[in-house]
């Protein structure tokens, strides 16, 4: 893979956008691995790796419900870093290591969300007198400052995780083929655990598990027809 400043900047920009999507801006699917990964792969010129890493990390993301004040991992820039690390390699040997890297980075990035919210609280407290007086200018200033905090958080993470992925890829920090395959198998088993746990945890109370089971049968039948 040939690296350039423009390529690195494009990846940082994409990872930053994905990070903002997590909670502050829009909250559509941009921060999900299944979107962040393939687009990172497209930017890198290796969409297939982006899809593989994105789908594998998405299995873990399906076990996360980002409600209210809950702490959850931030897969956005982490997925981009993992795709950079795996790009241009044989996926059966590199997928597991890339997923492991993605999980570590997503967990670390998730810890920055409550930190940003605490910084936001300091900003809001600084405006509290004006807010109590009903000053619309203070509402605007405080909100935009907090949005700026999340932009800073997302940018710092994007630079760090893109840089780390790039460094690991160019330094050739990779397991051997056999260990790489074992790691991939471990990652897939873990992903299956996550999907099954997520599906069961949200389905226990209602008929949803029956629909999931029906889907499982339909998918399995589809495979039999294919074979």
């Amino acid at each position, binding site marked *: 893979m040939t690296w350039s400043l423009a390529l690195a900047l494009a990846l940082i920009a994409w990872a930053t956008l994905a990070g903002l999507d997590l909670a502050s801006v829009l*909250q559509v699917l941009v921060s999900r691995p299944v979107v962040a990964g393939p687009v990172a792969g497209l930017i890198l010129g290796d969409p297939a790796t982006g899809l593989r890493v994105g789908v594998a990390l998405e299995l873990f993301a399906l076990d996360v419900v980002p409600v209210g004040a809950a702490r959850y991992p931030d897969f956005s820039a982490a997925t981009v870093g993992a795709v950079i690390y795996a790009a241009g390699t044989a996926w059966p040997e590199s997928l597991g290591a890339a997923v492991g890297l993605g999980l570590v980075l997503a967990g670390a990035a998730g810890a920055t969300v409550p930190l940003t*919210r605490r910084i936001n609280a300091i900003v809001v407290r600084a405006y509290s007198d004006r807010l109590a007086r009903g000053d619309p200018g203070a*509402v605007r200033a405080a909100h935009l400052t907090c949005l700026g905090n999340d932009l800073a958080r997302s940018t710092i993470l994007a630079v760090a995780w893109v840089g780390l992925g790039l460094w690991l890829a160019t330094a050739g920090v990779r397991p051997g083929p056999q260990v790489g395959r074992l790691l*991939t198998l471990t990652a897939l*088993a873990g*992903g299956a*655990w996550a*999907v099954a746990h997520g599906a069961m945890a949200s389905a226990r109370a*209602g008929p949803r598990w029956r629909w999931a089971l029906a889907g499982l049968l339909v998918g399995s039948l589809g495979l039999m027809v294919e074979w």
Partner: protein
Amino acid sequence: MVNGVARSFLRLLVLQGSWTYERLQGLGMAFASVPLLRPLEPDPERHAQAVARATEYFNAHPYLAGIAVGAAARAEREGVTGATIQRLRTALSGPLGSLGDQLFWIGVVPAVVGALLIAIVAGAGLWAVGVGLALYLAVRLLVTQWGLLLGLKAGLGVSAALQKSGLADQARRVGLLAGLAVGIAFPLVTRWFMPAAGAWTPWVIGAGAAGGVVAALVRFRVPPARRLTLVAMAVVLLLSWGVG
């Protein structure tokens, strides 16, 4: 007024940008409410009280928060008392949160992601990602607009209007679809990853899935799959290092 609604709609898309543990979405709600409270500006005291009220503690699902923003703004403009508006916000906060979580985080998102996974492993690749993202974005924008207009139209009667909208039934149906989509996707994704370790792959993935089901059913707390996977990977690396 139309301009105020459009500005409020755009601001609702960044509602959670100022989320804090003290006011939760309160400041974001005020940010989205300010354009709707403009008609009160000729009466500075009333306007200031309305803006100050909007900044107070509030939490709901971000896609449905517009319902509360619209309803509270309508009530403010109609001169409803501050205490009643505060009660309205409190009454809407919980239901809009749990309904939105059921409908979107546990319903639409896994349904769309499940469909995306099916399309990707079926060979649609990046097209599937683009189309899925565009459709989801459209749903997000339409729901936000619908919620804001519903709140503005219904005012204090928003709870009845929300009930009449049938959103709770939709949440149940979408939840079933999500189960179906993820269920169909699972074996197909397994097949897609088969080349990783040949014939062993489905057995290992099956064992992982069984572990996940058991972990969801047992009463004691099991660490999340993310952590368990990293521990297993560390063991693999340590063992291979020892053997090497």
